[in-house]
């Protein structure tokens, strides 16, 4: 199912700020989750001011694009905003909770506002609050909640009507490391187990990439890259080899030309047309295909070195972006 698709989407504010520029991107739940089922977590990343919040507001039909087209769940939000919003949940970045009512009342009310009949809204509100981890405290006034609890209430009001698409704007804002992990784990579960496609906005790619199946990176309103996380890291994995520091050389160590085992190994691999670099005691070899392992082992054996370590190192997407910029 195509969740969001845009063509040359642009948004220029009255003040002249160009928040989005020629953005064409398609988020398909089958591609995101990599299976036939719906769901999955999409990370929408970019620096502050990259256009993330503007994008979410256009998806919700709250802001008209300056040019270009957008479709959300097969509907045009500029025309059928209400129909889109009935099936989308939105958790804003800012604090948006009234202090003087309880979480149970608030979430029930917004369940009804989203189209749930009264009794259903009440039932789903308490279920949803339980799913986000609020139990007895849901009957207390929100004014007395911690930041973490407030974030959970904000998530619950976006989830209460069982949307097909959930938009989360910086959900970890203001949370301590433990609260951050709990929130991200919850988001991952919503995408994986609830069958809801989640779009999570963050300016901290390193923080959210571990829960994302798919990433859309924005920079200055333009699309930087959109792909599955495993595709982004594919071909980027490396093998780290550590060998004994040339014991065979130790007998004639007096000359000062003590060639390290690592250096020798790297040299031999390069002569066999394997891209290898050595860094101190380790040799790093890009993992091209399974034969790479054989080539390394052959080279180690030919040099009569003792192999201490052979590790596969997985790249983090954040490093790729850091390297690119």
């Amino acid at each position, binding site marked *: 199912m195509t969740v969001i698709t845009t063509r040359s989407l642009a948004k220029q504010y009255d003040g002249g700020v160009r928040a989005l520029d020629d953005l064409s991107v398609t988020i398909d739940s089958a591609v995101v989750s990599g299976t036939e089922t719906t769901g999955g977590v999409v990370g929408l990343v970019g620096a502050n001011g990259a256009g993330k919040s503007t994008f979410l507001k256009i998806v919700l039909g709250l802001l008209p694009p300056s040019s270009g087209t957008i479709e959300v769940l097969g509907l045009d939000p500029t025309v059928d905003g209400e129909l889109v919003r*009935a099936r989308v949940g939105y958790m804003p970045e800012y604090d948006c909770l009234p202090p*003087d009512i309880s979480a149970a009342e608030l979430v029930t009310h917004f369940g009804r506002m989203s189209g*749930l009949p009264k009794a259903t809204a009440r039932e*789903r509100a308490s279920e949803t609050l*339980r799913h986000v981890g609020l139990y007895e405290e849901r009957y207390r006034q929100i004014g007395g909640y911690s930041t973490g609890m407030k974030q959970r209430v904000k998530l619950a009001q976006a989830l209460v*009507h069982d949307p097909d698409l959930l938009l989360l704007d910086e959900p970890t804002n203001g949370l301590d490391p433990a609260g951050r992990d709990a929130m991200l784990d919850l988001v991952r579960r919503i995408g994986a*187990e609830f069958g809801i496609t989640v779009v999570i906005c963050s300016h901290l790619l390193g923080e959210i990439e571990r829960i994302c199946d798919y990433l859309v990176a924005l920079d200055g309103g333009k699309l930087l890259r959109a792909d599955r996380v495993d595709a982004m890291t594919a071909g980027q994995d490396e093998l780290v080899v550590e060998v004994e520091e040339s014991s065979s050389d130790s007998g004639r160590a007096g000359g000062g030309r003590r060639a390290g085992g690592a250096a020798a190994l790297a040299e031999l691999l390069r002569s066999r047309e394997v891209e290898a670099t050595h860094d101190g005691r380790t040799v790093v070899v890009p993992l091209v295909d399974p034969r790479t392992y054989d080539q390394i082992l052959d080279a180690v054996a030919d040099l009569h070195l003792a192999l201490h370590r052979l590790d596969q190192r997985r790249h983090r997407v954040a490093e790729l972006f850091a390297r690119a910029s």
Partner: protein
Amino acid sequence: MTTGVIHDLGYRRYTGPRLGRGYAFRTLYAHTVRTAFGLGRGVKAKIFSWTIIGIIAAVAVVMTAIKAQTGEAVMDGPQFVDNMATLVILLLAAVAPELTSRDQQTRVLGLYLARPLRRSDYALARLGGAVTAIFLVLAGPLLIMFAGGALSTKDGASGVGDAAVDTAQGLAHAATHALVLTTISLLVAALIRRRAIAAAAVVAVFLIALPAVGLAQELGGSEGTTELVSMVSPPTALSYLSVWLYADGKVPYSDDQVVHGPLLLVYAVVVIAACTALLVARYRKVPA
């Protein structure tokens, strides 16, 4: 501990009916009426509203008792409504910011706008709910007066008929009052984020023009001048309107006649329409 067991039920998708924009509008409308009466909110929210509602009801009870004892009505239905204008304004000073400023101050408005609802729907549901609440506050006491009048009348069916006509006129004027005063109050409050300031502004808007009206009345002026000046003070203008509509144009406690009746009627309609349009325009712009 049974919560662990419940927790393991897992997430359930919702496959039932999803009611659309009309339902969201009605839900917000009903919520607004309840909020205006302080229902579903703390004791603090109820005290002020219900004190004023209590005073208005008490006046009606006293009026009814006097009429039952003496057979003479102290004031008729429309007059009762006009005399309650100050109390209604005080009530609006509490209610209007609660319905408009609060959602902006707490930014809960952003959550409303993310629902299957348009910005104009939000404004009109809030306005409709507030008008309904103010109308009910006036209509309840009028019905008490009708019940008392009809039960205590010594003129039989014609007495009941008179009481019914008077009550109908009172209800019609209550509706006019509710519409004019509420649209103005909601518009003023919607422009201000801070609740306390919005409350003060609502009262100020109605009070600020009173000296002008007082001055015009003192100066006497030509016939009808006071009516024209009174248009800067909506409650005064409405009292002239009710005299023209329901009391043959004869201003009580004076020899004056209302001469600009039709103009006052147009004035009331224009105020309602303009304030409603401006309120909707405000909510088209207000940042969520």
